[in-house]
């Protein structure tokens, strides 16, 4: 029996439950309580692609140091699901803890002797007090929260406050929940000793908020001035549209008339959704759709139209495990090439890479300004890890002096005062022409929009030079896009180094944790976080500054590295892929192991092969 783990405010608890058993809210109560105690947590759902009856897990990482990435390994397993018992037990770290329902005796063979077992007869306790089966199921969950509170020494008052907040309105539910909570607390107090792992009040959370990226991106769309949303349900993006509807109901109903300052349409599929978005944007509304990989694939033809006819559009892609239907409830960053070069012919589309819900909000709003100013489709690339999990993130803020920037649009006065519409003429050298909204002026400024080849004035033309001039202008426009993409974020190593690392999106927290650990091990890495595509010269220079740059991605084919090399002409040999793509969020441990291994390998094998192997 190896010595019990000892840790304060630094451990991982994993709940193993059955899908649809109502455990979700109890588990979230547990996580939020720790947050309220001032200790940062990162929580993650691991769930199946089904509605009821299959295994699900909820992982809570408690980290006063503020490491919010997935750590890997489990210190305390709350094993509530017989189906997955063996696998769950297997995951516990030596010296870790197993918490289980001891009502029915379980043969010793089913345990491990290098872990500490904590049994609480949850079923027995709950059945004594409650008779209704649904109640029994729900309160059993609250009881284990109570028992854990006692075992981990959590602040009971905090939990009670959260319960009463949660049931505001349905007040009569508060008492029984609090009661169930104390049934768990009391049993643990009377029969069990506190564990070696513990929660202690701290002040490490600050003013951060706890929210999922889908909601944050939806909020960003509200602040970005989106009025039209056309979408089609698909995991993991469905909640984004639903959140947009929720926030619009809250913030966008006209006070006097009670009418809606928004229009949300569930399309019959993704082709219709993007078609509606392009139609609305063409007609002067800010419009977006949200989807995931399969939806992006179906939108491919329309995205090409948006690119070539130069219509603003925002596409929020909450990436899941591919290819095809793939792993709908797992996370990946594997739609990058599919989005960046979506559609036949020569096409390129800007993308934004939020690292957390905070940036989902900011970039969610920014995307609409970019789309209008660039008159082209913009992709906001979330992933399931950011989108569907609650993250601790900086509080939302907005500069009230900011006005919506609709880009180059001629209005009635402009036309009346003699300004002429030259739809596809590059008057300013930025590759962007002026447009008009339909219905602006009785006799001036109308034009014909088409996906076929056209001249500076939007007239149909099959003339070669006219075509070439037009698509070269589109390249200039793409250069302009570079300036609008949020600048990459650089953090340099404490010591001078010839090694760099590139990363983006949900990899951030694990990357930052890994950088700290590697630094301690004397491995110095300058790091740069990409925030969008196309890449600015800062990124290219960063690579040139270093002999060797590791590119951390959550896909198999090093897709972002391909984009970088393609657009920059950098030698790929100096950019070594580090790829995690099993569908689980990348961990600091993985990054540390891979980079250490690669640094060793470097001295024996030529780079190209390293890259090849990685």
């Amino acid at each position, binding site marked *: 029996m190896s010595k019990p783990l000892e840790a304060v405010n630094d451990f991982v608890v994993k709940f193993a439950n059955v899908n649809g058993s109502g455990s979700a809210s109890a588990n979230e109560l547990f996580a939020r309580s720790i947050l309220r105690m001032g200790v940062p947590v990162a929580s993650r759902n691991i769930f199946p692609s089904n509605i009821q009856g299959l295994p699900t897990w909820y992982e809570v990482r408690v980290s006063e140091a503020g490491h919010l990435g997935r750590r890997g390994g489990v210190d305390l397993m709350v094993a509530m699901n017989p189906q997955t018992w063996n696998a769950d037990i297997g995951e516990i770290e030596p010296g870790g803890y197993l918490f289980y329902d001891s009502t029915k005796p379980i043969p010793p063979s089913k345990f491990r002797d290098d872990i500490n077992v904590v049994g609480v007869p949850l079923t027995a306790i709950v059945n004594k007090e409650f008779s209704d089966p649904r109640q029994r199921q729900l309160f059993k969950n609250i009881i284990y929260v109570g028992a854990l509170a006692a075992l981990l020494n959590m602040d009971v008052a905090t939990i009670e406050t959260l319960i009463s907040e949660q049931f505001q309105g349905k007040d009569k539910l508060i008492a029984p929940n609090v009661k169930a909570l104390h049934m768990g607390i009391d049993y643990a107090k009377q029969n069990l000793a506190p564990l070696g792992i513990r929660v202690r009040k701290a002040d490490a959370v600050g003013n951060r908020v706890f929210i999922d990226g889908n909601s944050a991106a939806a909020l960003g769309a509200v602040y970005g001035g989106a009025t039209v949303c056309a979408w089609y349900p698909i995991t993991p993006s469905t909640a984004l549209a639903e959140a947009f509807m929720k926030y619009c109901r809250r913030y966008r109903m006209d006070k006097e008339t009670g009418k809606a300052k928004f229009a949300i349409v569930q399309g019959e599929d993704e082709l219709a959704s993007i*078609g509606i978005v392009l*139609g609305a944007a063409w*007609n002067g509304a800010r419009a977006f759709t949200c989807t995931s990989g399969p939806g992006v694939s179906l939108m491919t033809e329309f995205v090409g139209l948006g690119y070539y006819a130069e219509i603003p559009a925002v596409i929020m892609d909450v990436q899941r495990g591919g290819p095809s239907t793939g792993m709908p409830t797992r996370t990946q960053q594997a739609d990058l090439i599919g989005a960046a070069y979506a559609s036949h012919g020569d096409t390129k589309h800007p993308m934004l890479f939020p690292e957390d819900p905070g940036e989902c909000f900011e970039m969610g709003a920014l995307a609409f300004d970019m789309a209008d100013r660039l008159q082209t489709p913009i992709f906001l690339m979330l992933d399931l890890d950011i989108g569907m999990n609650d993250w601790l993130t900086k509080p939302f803020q907005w500069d009230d002096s900011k006005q919506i920037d609709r880009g180059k649009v001629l209005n009635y006065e402009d036309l009346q005062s003699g300004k002429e519409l030259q739809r596809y003429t590059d008057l300013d050298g930025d590759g962007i022409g002026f447009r008009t909204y339909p219905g602006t002026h009785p006799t001036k400024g109308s034009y014909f*929009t088409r996906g076929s080849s056209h001249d500076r004035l939007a007239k149909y033309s099959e003339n070669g030079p006219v075509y070439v001039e037009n698509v070269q202008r589109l390249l200039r426009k793409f250069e302009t896009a570079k300036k609008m993409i949020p600048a990459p974020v650089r953090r340099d190593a404490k010591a001078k180094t010839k090694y760099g690392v590139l990363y983006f999106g949900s990899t951030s927290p694990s990357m930052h944790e890994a950088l700290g650990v590697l630094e301690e091990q004397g491995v110095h890495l300058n790091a740069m976080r990409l925030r969008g595509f196309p890449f600015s010269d800062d990124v290219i220079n960063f690579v040139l500054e270093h002999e060797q740059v590791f590119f951390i991605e959550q896909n198999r084919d090093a897709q972002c590295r391909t984009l970088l090399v393609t657009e920059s002409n950098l030698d790929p040999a100096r950019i070594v892929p580090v790829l995690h793509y099993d569908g689980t969020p990348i961990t600091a441990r993985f990054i540390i192991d891979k980079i250490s291994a690669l640094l060793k390998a470097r001295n024996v094998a030529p780079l190209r092969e390293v890259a090849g192997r990685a």
Partner: protein
Amino acid sequence: MTYIPKPKLHHPSLPKNKLGFTHRDYEGSVSTLCAGCGHDSISAAIIQACYELDLPPHRIAKLSGIGCSSKTPDYFLGNSHGFNSVHGRMPSVLTGANLANKDLIYLGVSGDGDSASIGFGQFAHSIRRGVNMVYVVENNGVYGLTKGQFSATSDKGSKSKYGALNNDSAIDMIGIALQLGATFVARGFSGDKDQLVPLIKAAMNHHGAAFIDCISPCVAFNNHAGSTKSFDYVREHNETVNRLDVMVDHEPITADYAPGTVELVTQHDGSVLRLRKIAAHYDPSDRIAVMNYLQERAAAGEIVTGLLYVDPEGQDLHDYLNTVDKPLNELGTADLVPGNAALAKLNESLR
């Protein structure tokens, strides 16, 4: 067709409508379609209808998919914004445009391939949603632009020029539109402008999804004897159930008719449709009876034309979504952005 662009300068003697626009002000660029193509006649009817309705050209948005038919928006209403989108997807693009600005008139032009083959789903769903639009299918029962392949409205059993035989049963878009809840359904014939113009005018005054199936023979690929989409066949089998006059500014109905021969329908926007009945017992307000009648006549090889069904109280997507009166594309920062105070409150609830 000619290649000398017509002089745009206005002959003073040209008649003007109430807005002071001449017929020319509703024309577009010169058609590049085949001489005699039915589609050009439909363009002419659209021009005529808009002129007669005194519509400001720029308050109309014309949208289409891909095909000879879908090219036509370039050939009428040169002062209107047009959008020639992608094949089969006009309905979704039009739906989006409509959401952005409820105040314009949306004219969707499509072909039978564009709407019944690749676009059948979008056609159906835009009708179901009650998008406020005029949806015209220029139906020639063939793919014109790609040179004569079958569309989903081609006659079962017909042979294509490269020898393929069509075995699929033809889609009757009118029947489908009725099933899916269209509130205005009509069938016209490019060869009968007198009938077509008022149908288009009535559709433009209709509030909700107005669908017009317009038989429009393709002289290049589907006008041969035996084709039910040929000029000759349609002329021989055209069974007109009613004739229509559209009165927008409520002139008093003076002339009187034999009882049961005329019906007056007042649409949501106040415009009055005067239906001169030809098939005495045909009642365009009874959806189920209409469907039944059309099925029977179709089985008999007849092509029923006229205003086939109308629900003058039709609702539209904006009514359902309860959107503000101001077009969404006119809302500004103040209307749309809740501001920082709201965020502060929200942050509180997320801790």
